[in-house]
């Protein structure tokens, strides 16, 4: 197959960038999107052009490292990560535009590589259950209804790629935050810290400059882990309750 690529090239965080035109020739239909870029990079190297820098690691859709905006959509057509997108999904001869994930809180570092440390800092603000290795009771001492565990697992499946914020017109990270708040909040082990967790995580999110949710649902549409936007509503509720408690002075 053959493709005409428009690829975002940018030297560094401070410099401007622009789309460059490259051709992708002799691409097998079974190749993944990133393997297509590997082939293009080999070609560029042969021609003495610096290869395109893009993130990836596991290449099986679970680490959340790959992060390309393809034809305007984070992770491109279909549901799944960039690395799990296969060229057979495209038409031979198609023009494909490739940009980094775009969100104010994810500054571009080079070409298609963005900095997503903001997500780590949100997790540090409260995305955990405080416990200490060696202090846990027997795993079966607290039964958890299967339905509850299943929803917690649905939420925990988030891969932290950032597509949600990149897709959102407001650059909101609500889907990401709500996934963690839901996962830990549903489990009996997480409940003691629910109020503190939701307040700290949401506040950190605001501090990082992520926007608010105004119900576009673009996040849900691109999420490779299938996190539903309904979690955001649940998080908003939890946030309101916790802030009311806080404002009337109930210790959290």
């Amino acid at each position: 197959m053959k493709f005409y690529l428009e690829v975002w090239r940018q030297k560094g965080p401070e410099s401007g960038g622009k789309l460059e035109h490259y051709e992708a020739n002799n691409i097998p239909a079974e190749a993944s999107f990133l393997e297509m870029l590997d082939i293009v990079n080999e070609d560029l190297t042969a021609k003495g052009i610096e290869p395109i820098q893009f993130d990836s690691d596991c290449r099986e859709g679970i680490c959340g490292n790959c992060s390309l905006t393809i034809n305007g959509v984070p992770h491109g057509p279909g549901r799944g990560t960039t690395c799990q997108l296969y060229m057979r999904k495209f038409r031979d001869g198609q023009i494909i535009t490739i940009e980094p994930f775009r969100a104010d809180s994810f500054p571009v570092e080079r070409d298609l590589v963005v900095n997503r440390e903001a997500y780590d800092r949100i997790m540090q603000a409260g995305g955990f259950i405080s416990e200490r290795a060696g202090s846990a009771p027997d795993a079966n001492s607290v039964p958890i209804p299967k339905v509850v565990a299943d929803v917690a697992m649905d939420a925990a499946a988030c891969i932290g790629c950032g597509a949600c914020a990149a897709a959102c017109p407001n650059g909101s990270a609500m889907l990401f935050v709500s996934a963690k708040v839901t996962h830990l909040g549903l489990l009996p082990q997480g409940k003691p810290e629910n109020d503190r967790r939701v307040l700290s995580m949401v506040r950190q999110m605001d501090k990082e400059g992520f926007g608010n949710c105004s119900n576009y649902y673009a996040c849900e549409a691109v999420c490779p882990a299938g996190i539903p936007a309904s979690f955001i509503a649940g998080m908003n509720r939890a946030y309101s309750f916790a802030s009311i408690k806080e404002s009337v002075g109930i210790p959290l």
Partner: protein
Amino acid sequence: MTLDANIPAGPLDKKWTSFKNTAKLVNPANKRKFDIIIVGSGLAGAASAATLAEQGYKVKCFCYQDSPRRAHSIAAQGGINAAKNYQNDGDSVYRLFYDTIKGGDFRAREANVHRLAEISNQIIDQCVAQGVPFAREYGGLLDNRSFGGAQVSRTFYARGQTGQQLLLGTYSALSHQIALGNVEMFSKAEMMDLVVVDGHAKGIVVRDMTTGEITSHAGDAVLLCTGGYGNVFYLSTNARGCNVTATYRAYKRGALFANPCYTQIHPTCIPVSGEYQSKLTLMSESLRNDGRVWVPKRKEDCAKEPKDIPEDARDYYLERKYPSYGNLAPRDISSRSAKEVCDDGRGVGPGGLGVYLDFADAIKRLGKHVIEERYGNLFEMYHNITGEDAYERPMRIYPAVHYTMGGLWVDYNLMSNIPGLHVLGEANFSDHGANRLGASALMQGLADGYFVLPNTLGTYMASQFGKKVDASAPAFKEAVDSVKARVQKLISIKGTRSVDSFHRELGKIMWDKCGMARDKKGLEEALRKIPKLREEFWTNLKLLGSADGINMELERAGRVADFLEFGELMCLDALNRNESCGGHFRTEYQTPEGEALRDDENFDYVAAWKYEGDNTAPTLVKEPLVYEEVKLATRSYK
């Protein structure tokens, strides 16, 4: 040189307890004075970073990804073992211990493995307390499944994403400690060298992958938790960035590398489809709980649609050869059997390199929805990659490189022969002998990180009061300079061949000569080819861009340069081991039925290699394996 594994005295099942009762302790006020450097944020790295920080140590943690949450532990699918016996099917600590020793083909250290089995139960407790959403039954209790090499159901799982959930658990704990200021996290920071001061590991050299800056960090102890080196084969189930650099650099600074040739080839991966391919994708072994493996009995049937091949024309070869374990035979045996039938011309799919994994019976028995619930995401992944629907047509699978049992040599305390240098998780050689059982790597990574090292580190730390070194010691400058020179050298070769082309060629040599089956002739050939390829690499590599800022080709080039040396060490080890055991199958040493033929008399030892210089052969140091509890037996899964 002799190796002392420092195994505590006493009966096997009391060793760990008595160790803990008498281990040296460091009081909380003193822990604060110690800086611990941890390289890696996978299960082993993140768990140890969080736990040591909880105990009061000051921790610096490094990883090459942009976030600790992306370490390759994230990709583990199937599950984690523990001897809980929640299923009441006769499991016990002893059985888990015995299965692991036997699965490892009697090439692991008894005391370590027993400790691992003892700790396994605490790990599950710890993970549940952290909020890991393991699969549950309707009654609310934890569910289990079976894995290869065991006749009990002892595997805990979180859908097909167990590694992800366990890693996110450790990542949460780590994030908590970062927030408390007890851990300083360095992401996109690649360890390029180890700093040894007066014979002790006291620091590392790191390249900031965003700015290109090369700096050193000093600490009172160094923990390497850098995962496995399966990418020496180019194609493997590992992530693109998995490397041997950290452990190999430590080897070049004097740490012994143990059993490098023990690699695990996983039986159920999606077969290779072309030259362009950058990695292989695993289909979890848990699928073998419900899938049946077969190939046509006759070569002529291979090209037919599987549904047109009648029952009596199919060879369910694992069930035929290993009736009591059947499709759940251990990995090495299953992989080799797949290779045999394909070598016999009965493989299916492109190039005849594939066998069927068929769910038709299970779907008939349990219904499609049950299979979907158990393995939905795997079927989806398979469909996405191959374009085939495994509910309708059997999956095609083939073995692929997956895990490396070899690693840096460590004693019972997880300390290498360099005092202060500790090695955890897949990066060490410790617990799996010549073959690892499924769902045991996650167990080992977390055991090492949460429970073993936090108890054993004190032994070393207690001897280090008042012995702090800082990064102004000459050894630091020497190490930083040598790393800078190496990076500059890579950049200035200006040849004509890309990094990946060298890596692919090395991978092919390794797969052909040091893969699923090895022999003397092939290994000797590899030992002739690798140095030539290495020489070409250092004279003909084409690497564009500069050393400042992001340059992923440069990162890969550094890793490939190390693989090009390390591959040779693997072949040397494979050549030395004149026997077959576990994942190491030398075709010269097999039983008439084609099973691995061990030579306990001559090879019941850990082969630890000592670096002697770039153009000198490494020396072999042996740690004899002493079995007090287990009687060595021929492994039988029939």
